[in-house]
Structure formats: structure tokens, C-alpha cells
């Protein structure tokens, strides 16, 4: 199936992204734009305590206010709905949309007020009187591990949600035989994707038709199923409208608690209800923080810098509830050795509950922290054996002729050419000149460093980490779908069955179907039906849409092309293999031809001309299964994602020692995601991912104080990269097609975020290395850099290193 890019007519060409037109005119349709007749609005009351028993809630004053319709508490909700889905097998870690009996983090929602306007609802929350009985709380993961730590969920018995030890290969022997070892700790701070649009949802219940209509800013697999289960209603009573534009997500727009809350309220008050999180609600209690992880790493290697084995202990602070977040320790198993030929790995994955806000899936699903840990290990190995960091990587990289390459944890990497990508980047960047520039900066009194990081982006997301971490889960399929209809006038309409948060699915699908049917992609209409009219989909997660939605569209189009060729062959009286299909028309060697319009007319109107066993009309669907994903894990080994994109980041950075502020002088990335469907989209995601990773490395962290309160609750103190922080990025392309996909494409949505934290921190550590210090904790804030430099210059021991 794999073809060289040059043979394509539309794929890989620099075509405009069709979605852009409506957005530049302000004509997107986001959830806050949904205004329903008679709609009411919700505000929520946050807990002031990280842990407290809720003794009583007095809503009488609030309810007496004009314009206030209803006040909902956790007790009522828990009586009328089932608990929200829990990915792990931890049945006593129960979670509802509102706190039930006890609050488990500061900011957790205690009650919801429904009123005529959002402002009135907010006014009313201030009149709610809650009596709390404060309880002991625990904020740090290592403390939560201790048997005598305050229990977040007493019924669960401990704060440990997950503690799994995997040993793949002969770890003990490799450690015993390796002449060199090193151990270190790195920490990934709690940050998140923080989209500019917060989560929002509107719902309306029709009691006469038994239909719950939902409009939401959503990116989540099986969203209507989860709502139906929680509300104890048939799944076909839930109709989620997918034609809502989503203002960014990068994983976190899961919003199940918000959605169940609003759906319940809409039914309870008999009016449409909408809840749009404000920024405060989103940041402190939207259940959308990302991993907060401590890595303890041991590496076994030889004097040549060849790494033989690795022990990884990853301890994640999941926050107050389980949800799906602990699985973010599972996905990295699919690329646990990164792009390196490490022969054996021991991996201990631990996830604990604490009195912090809960996590959600974040771009890369746990891969970015793991990649930061692995790349730091390679940098440290290089320093230990006294070789250039790039040389150590070259010695450990899997070679092009070794693919498909089976890693110890059971995943097979599809394809790659890491050495060539690195070579191209070094040539483009003129690495020698870059080193000279670094030395020149150093000579001028600056601290300057070069950062290097490689990374793999597993793509084509399936969910095989679920059965690996939870034996009761037997999921082996994670499909996506497309349906194509060619109408009687010959126009093509495609349905896709998920939402989009800026990934350009309409462009993707139009381009691929245009390529197969050889018609102008701009003439293809792409629509998103509601979930009652949908084929199965698992939404844009795991960098999968080019592979899965693209694959589904390709195969559906192939089915239609086959049908058109059969119609033509029947008319021409020849074998199908003698029919040529080009530019939407069919012809044979004898000079017969049928135009697109004629073929369509036969299919739609001329039943007498159709082959005898053929259905009339032109409609095809395809439900695409993840390539390579059809097995349950065996002995702790699993085939995770089918495709593996590769990136290589090279950064030159300077720090003014007096200011401590890092300034990126140059950023070059080599990017190989196989065949690119739309260059604009891939480029944008790569640059956006780098910015996102830059934020995680230098700026972004959800910080809690000693009292258990979040102190970064707004954009004044949780800093996102602006145009000033983001450097110009040079992208060096390479294409190693995947053998598992229709055009050789791989995923590209996560790459920048997976590699840039490792690269930027590597550059900072190179810059401060002359002072004998290093940073092992993200984010590396300007203040931390300034303090560490000052301490080092005064001969004080470095605090960061502890």
C-alpha cells in the first residue's frame, strides 16, 4: 500500500486547511455559542478545604433569591446517578460530579446552583452555607505512599491506586555484567494542556421523546456511553451533537463530571441547562491537570556508552480520584526504551491518590515525562563515559535495517531511520558552527548550552495499556470509522464520527477521499452527525486520526471506487482489471469511457444497467481497526501503538547569569512522521507542541501551598508561553513511511511536546555545567536558575539536586 509521496495528486500538497475559513471570520460554533430556548445557567460552589467532612449544606437563602431555580448537592446526585467511570479496578474510589459526604481537594465542587443567568447563579453560590469538619490531608506522592498517611479514600484501604512491577528481559544479569551503573532522580511538575477555551456543556432533556441532547466541548472516546451509564438511562436516549467546534483540548476535554451534572440538572429542572467553566473553575477543579511524576532511574552501560539495561520507577500523583489518569503510566510501556536498543527493562509504575485536583489525559498520555527521564539518562551516560551526547545516542539508536524492531516490553516499532534524521539536522544546523557560537557566547560572559533530545511518538492510539494495567479490562479493538455517500448529482458527502479540536479532520478526510476517487477535495463535504447517527469512533486521542480516520476514509473510498469500476466493466463488457479509473471517469482499452456523471446516474437511476447482484446507490462505510492491535497482553508484554514517528530536537540557548532568564537562540527539529497528508497541519502541530513543551519546561506548574490550596489559579500565575517566549523553529523533514498505513502516514500531534522538554532542559544543563550544577526538576523557572547560579557562584550547595 505504501507509495512514494511524489505519486500523489492531493496528499502531501500544500493545500489550504478548509476549516480555517470559518474560524478567521469568527464563524466557529463553540459550545458557548449554543443558546437554547429557555436555557438556564450553572455555577458551582468550590470547597475551601483540601479534606473535610461535609456536615451540612444550607441552601435556603440561595433558593429564595429571585432567578434561582435549583440547588443540587452531592447527596442528591449520588442517590440518583451511578458513580463516574473508574479505569482501574478500584471500586471503593468512588467519584461523582459533586463531593459526596467529604471533600477531597480544595476547589472540589460541593454544590451546583441553577439560575436564569450565570451571574445570578454565582451570586447565589455565595449564599450557600456549608459546615465542614476539616480532616487531615496529604499532598505529596511519597507521603501518600506511607501506610500511616491520611487516607484520601478510607474505604479503599490505602492511597495506592496502582503498583505494578514489570520485568522485561534479563535485567539482573545485564546489571551484573555491565561495568558501569548510574542512578538519578528527575521530577516532572504538574502541568496541563490548559486550552484557551475552558470546558463547557449544554444539555436539554425532552421528556416526550426520552432524549437527552448534549452539546459539549468534548474530546473523549465513549462519551455518550458514560453519560448514559451514570444517569442509568439507555444509551440511545443520549444524543451528543458532534458539530460543535472545540477550542483546543490536547487530551483534557473529557468533562464527564461536568456533563453528568448538567444532564442531571436539565432533567431535574425541566429546562435546558448550560455550564461553561470559568478559568478559575477550569484550573483548580476542572479535573484536568496532567501527570506529576517522580522518576528514579538506574542505568547499566559499558565504557563505550552502550546502554544495556534500565530500571525505571515512576511514581505519579494522580490527585483525589482515579479516573483514567493512572493509565498515563501505561502508554509509555509501548516505547519504554525510546529509540534505543536497550535489551532489558524493569519498570515499576505507581500511582497514588492525594488531596490535589484530579488528572486527565494530557497530550502524549504520559510519554513526555518518560521521554524526559530517558533522554536525561542518555545525557548522564554520555557525561559518565566522557563522550559527546550525540555519539552516545548514535551508538544506542536502533538502525534502519533492524526494523521492524521488537522492544523488550512486546511492542514492535514499524519503521524509522534515526541516524539519517540526526545527520540531516546536524547538517542543516551546521552543528560545528553552533558549538562555536555556544563557545563564543560563553566567552562573552553568558552561560550557553546546546540541548539534544531524540524522541519517539507512538501513534495510531489503541488502548492496550488498559488490559495491561487492569486485567478485568478486555479491550482489544479501538476502531474509527467513515461513511461516504455520493448523491444522485455526483457530489460526495462524508460523515465522520467524532469532534475536532483543531486537528483539521475535514481537510484530512477530504484530501484522502479526493486522492482515491481523483476528484477535487474542496468539492467533498464533510459533516459530523450526532451520536445516534454515528458509526463507532474512539475520538482523536493517541495521535491517531491520520492513521485511523484517514484509513477508514481511504478504505470506504476504495469500496466506492471498486463499485464504480464494476459498473463500468459491466457496461463495457470487459473484465474489471481492464478498466482504468482516472480523474473520476472510467475507461477500457477498447476506447469505451463513462464519465463520473454517467456512472453516478447508473448507480442511482438505472437499475437495469447495474450488475445483477449490486445494490443501487453509492454509499460505503468502513470501520477501521488499529493495525497490529488485536491481542490481549501476554505475560506483561503487549503490542501498543502501530506506528512510531521520530523527532530529533537541537537547541542553542543562552542564560544571562545575572538574570537567570534562558533565551533560546536557535531551535531545529528533525521530524519524520512518514507520509505527510497536509504539510500545513503537521507543521502547525509540531510548532504548537514545541511551545507546549517549552511551557512545561520553563513556565507551567500547578503549585499547592502548605494548606493544600492551589496557588496558581489564573493566567497571572500559571504562565503560558506567549509569542515572546517562542523562538523561530526550523523543521528538517524526513519521510520513512509506515508499512501499516494506507499512504505510509504516522501520527504527528504529540511530537513537539514529547521532545522539547528533554531538549530544553538538556540545553540548560549544558549551559550551567561549567558551574558544576544541573537541574533535575521541571519546570525550571527563571527564579530557580537565578538562585542556583548565585548559590554556585558563592560556593553554596545546590538545592535543586536534592
Amino acid at each position: 500500500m505504501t507509495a512514494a509521496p511524489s505519486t500523489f495528486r492531493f496528499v502531501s500538497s500544500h493545500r489550504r486547511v478548509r476549516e480555517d475559513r470559518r474560524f478567521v471570520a469568527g464563524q466557529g460554533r463553540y459550545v458557548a455559542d449554543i443558546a437554547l430556548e429557555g436555557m438556564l445557567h450553572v455555577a458551582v460552589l468550590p470547597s475551601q478545604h483540601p479534606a473535610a467532612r461535609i456536615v451540612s449544606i444550607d441552601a435556603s437563602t440561595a433558593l429564595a433569591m429571585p432567578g434561582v431555580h435549583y440547588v443540587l448537592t452531592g447527596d442528591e446526585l449520588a442517590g440518583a446517578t451511578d458513580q463516574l467511570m473508574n479505569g482501574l479496578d478500584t471500586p471503593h474510589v468512588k467519584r461523582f460530579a459533586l463531593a459526596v459526604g467529604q471533600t477531597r481537594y480544595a476547589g472540589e465542587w460541593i454544590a451546583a446552583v441553577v439560575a436564569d443567568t450565570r451571574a445570578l447563579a454565582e451570586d447565589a453560590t455565595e449564599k450557600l452555607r456549608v459546615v465542614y469538619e476539616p480532616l487531615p490531608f496529604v499532598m505529596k506522592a511519597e507521603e501518600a505512599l506511607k501506610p500511616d498517611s491520611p487516607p484520601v479514600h478510607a474505604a479503599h484501604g490505602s492511597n495506592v491506586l496502582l503498583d505494578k512491577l514489570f520485568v522485561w528481559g534479563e535485567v539482573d544479569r545485564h546489571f551484573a555484567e555491565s561495568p558501569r551503573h548510574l542512578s538519578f532522580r528527575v521530577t516532572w511538575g504538574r502541568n496541563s494542556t490548559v486550552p484557551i477555551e475552558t470546558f463547557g456543556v449544554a444539555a436539554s432533556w425532552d421528556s416526550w421523546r426520552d432524549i437527552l441532547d448534549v452539546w459539549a466541548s468534548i474530546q473523549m472516546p465513549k462519551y455518550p456511553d458514560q453519560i448514559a451509564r451514570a444517569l442509568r438511562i439507555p444509551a440511545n436516549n443520549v444524543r451528543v451533537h458532534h458539530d460543535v467546534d472545540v477550542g483546543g483540548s490536547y487530551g483534557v476535554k473529557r468533562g464527564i463530571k461536568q456533563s453528568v451534572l448538567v444532564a442531571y440538572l436539565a432533567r431535574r429542572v425541566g429546562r435546558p441547562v448550560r455550564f461553561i467553566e470559568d478559568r478559575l473553575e477550569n484550573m483548580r477543579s476542572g479535573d484536568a491537570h496532567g501527570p506529576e511524576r517522580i522518576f528514579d532511574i538506574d542505568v547499566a552501560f559499558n565504557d563505550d556508552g552502550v546502554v544495556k539495561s534500565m530500571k525505571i520507577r515512576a511514581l505519579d500523583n494522580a490527585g483525589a480520584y482515579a479516573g483514567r489518569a493512572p493509565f498515563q503510566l501505561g502508554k509509555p510501556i509501548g516505547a519504554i526504551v525510546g529509540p534505543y536498543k536497550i535489551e532489558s527493562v524493569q519498570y515499576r509504575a505507581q500511582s497514588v491518590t492525594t488531596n490535589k485536583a484530579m488528572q486527565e489525559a494530557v497530550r502524549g498520555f504520559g510519554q513526555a515525562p518518560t521521554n524526559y527521564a530517558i533522554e536525561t539518562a542518555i545525557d548522564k551516560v554520555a557525561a559518565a563515559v566522557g563522550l559527546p551526547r550525540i555519539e552516545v545516542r548514535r551508538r544506542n539508536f536502533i538502525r534502519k535495517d533492524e526494523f521492524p524492531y521488537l522492544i523488550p516490553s512486546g511492542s514492535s516499532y514499524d519503521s524509522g531511520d534515526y541516524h539519517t534524521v540526526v545527520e540531516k539536522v546536524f547538517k542543516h544546523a551546521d552543528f560545528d558552527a553552533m558549538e562555536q557560537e555556544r563557545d563564543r557566547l560563553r566567552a562573552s560572559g553568558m552561560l550557553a548550552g546546546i540541548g539534544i533530545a531524540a524522541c519517539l511518538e507512538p501513534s495510531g492510539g489503541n488502548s492496550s495499556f488498559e488490559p495491561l494495567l487492569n486485567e478485568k479490562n478486555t479491550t482489544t479493538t479501538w476502531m474509527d470509522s467513515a461513511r461516504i455517500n455520493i448523491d444522485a448529482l455526483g457530489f460526495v458527502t462524508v460523515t465522520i464520527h467524532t469532534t475536532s479540536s483543531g486537528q483539521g479532520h475535514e481537510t484530512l478526510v477530504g484530501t484522502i477521499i479526493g486522492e482515491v476517487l481523483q476528484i477535487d477535495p474542496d468539492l467533498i463535504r464533510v459533516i459530523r452527525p450526532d451520536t445516534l447517527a454515528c458509526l463507532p469512533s474512539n475520538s482523536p486521542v493517541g495521535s491517531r486520526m491520520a492513521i485511523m480516520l484517514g484509513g477508514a476514509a481511504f478504505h470506504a473510498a476504495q469500496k466506492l471506487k471498486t463499485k464504480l469500476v464494476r459498473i463500468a466493466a459491466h457496461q463495457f463488457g470487459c473484465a474489471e482489471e481492464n478498466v482504468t479509473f482516472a480523474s473520476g471517469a472510467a475507461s477500457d482499452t477498447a476506447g469505451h469511457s463513462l464519465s463520473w456523471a454517467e456512472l453516478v446516474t447508473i448507480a442511482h437511476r438505472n437499475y437495469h444497467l447495474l450488475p445483477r447482484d449490486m445494490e443501487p446507490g453509492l454509499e460505503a462505510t468502513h470501520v477501521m481497526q488499529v493495525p497490529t492491535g488485536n491481542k490481549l497482553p501476554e505475560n506483561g508484554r503487549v503490542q501498543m501503538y502501530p506506528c512510531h514517528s521520530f523527532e530529533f530536537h537541537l537547541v542553542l540557548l543562552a542564560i544571562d547569569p545575572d538574570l537567570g532568564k534562558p533565551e533560546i537562540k536557535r531551535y531545529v527539529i528533525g521530524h519524520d512522521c512518514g507520509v505527510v497528508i497536509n504539510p500545513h497541519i503537521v507543521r502547525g502541530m509540531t510548532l504548537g507542541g514545541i511551545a507546549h513543551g517549552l511551557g512545561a519546561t520553563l513556565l507551567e506548574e500547578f503549585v499547592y501551598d502548605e494548606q493544600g490550596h492551589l496557588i496558581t489559579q489564573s493566567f497571572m500565575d500559571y504562565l503560558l508561553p506567549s509569542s515572546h517566549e517562542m523562538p523561530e523553529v526550523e523543521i528538517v523533514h524526513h519521510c520513512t513511511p509506515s508499512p501499516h498505513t494506507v499512504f505510509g502516514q504516522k501520527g504527528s500531534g504529540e511530537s513537539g511536546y514529547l521532545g522539547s522538554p528533554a531538549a530544553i532542559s538538556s540545553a540548560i544543563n549544558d549551559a550551567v555545567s561549567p558551574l558544576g550544577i544541573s537541574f533535575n526538576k521541571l519546570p525550571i523557572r527563571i527564579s530557580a536558575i537565578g538562585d542556583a547560579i548565585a548559590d554556585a557562584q558563592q560556593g553554596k550547595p545546590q538545592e535543586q539536586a536534592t
Partner: protein
Amino acid sequence: MKVELRVNGVSRTADVEPRKTLLDTLRENFLLNGAHAGCEHGVCGACTVLVDGEPVRSCLMFAVQADGYEITTIEGLAPAPGELSVIQDAFCETHGLQCGYCTPGMILSAHALLQHTHTPSREEIVEAISGNICRCTGYGQIVEAVQFAAGRLQKSNALRPNHVSPGHHGAGHDAPEEGVLEADAPKEIV
């Protein structure tokens, strides 16, 4: 209380609470949904509109404060339904957006910059959009969009707004003819 606002060249009236922001008024009273709420504390810029031609955060301004000013929203930029302004078209050309949520504010900030100069430096572009946070793009293709639009405007046959030389943008800031010139902005579609 009753307010009368000039929005996109049209007088509109609304009955609003004094505490109601300009953003909420534009969206809820006038159904102009292009301005978006992002942070509601003046950092992200998703709610940007032009007030007398200058970018302003409509989440930080009350509707009652906007009386007497010319307000331009993203809906006021497109010359006709289905037709894009030069800057809007440039954002499409370079794919200077992804999810589109910050885009109206970003385009209005770029529009204000290019009202002052058709020859902005990269630094001036970075500065002009630095109050608009985009989480998707990493800004690269946005900067390119503004550069592309500036190039188009330079080559167009229209008057240079304010005739401001590079490096002195803002000099004509209070010129009375501003806003009139906006109407004269080229409507080139390529």
C-alpha cells in the same frame, strides 16, 4: 441600564446590568459570537475587539464604558458574507490557527498593527500579538500570516493608512481620520 453602542458601524441598544462586560454584551445581546471568553481576567486576549481602532480586552471593559466609541468585532472585518479581508485570507494561506478559538482576537490585533504600518518588523509583529495567547500553533504560522498580509497590503493599490513610517507606529494614534481609513482598507481577495 440602557446603553447605545456603535458596533461595526451600526448603532445598537441594549438593556444591561452595569456589571455586564462588553464581551458578554456583544455575545449575548448582539449575538456577535466571534469574541471569545478565554481567561476573563485580561491575559489571554481571546476576547479582543477594537475600540476606536485599538485592540482592547472586552472582558475587562463594561458595556456601559463603551458608550461613544467605535467598536469593531471580527464580524466587522469580512467585506461581505463569504469574503475575507486581506488579513483573514493571509491566516488561511499560512494556516495561522488550529482550533480557531483565539483567532478572532489574534486577527484583530494583527489588523490594528497593519493599520499603523504595512512594513512591520518581526519584532513588531511578535510584540503586537504578544497579548494574545495561542495554545495550538506556537505562533510560527501566525507571524507568517501577518508578514504575508503586510506584503499583500504593501503591493495593493490602496492608501497607506496614516502613512506611518516603520518604527513610528502609534504616531498617528489619535488622528481623527482613523476608522474612516479602516473603511478604505483594501478589499483584495486573491
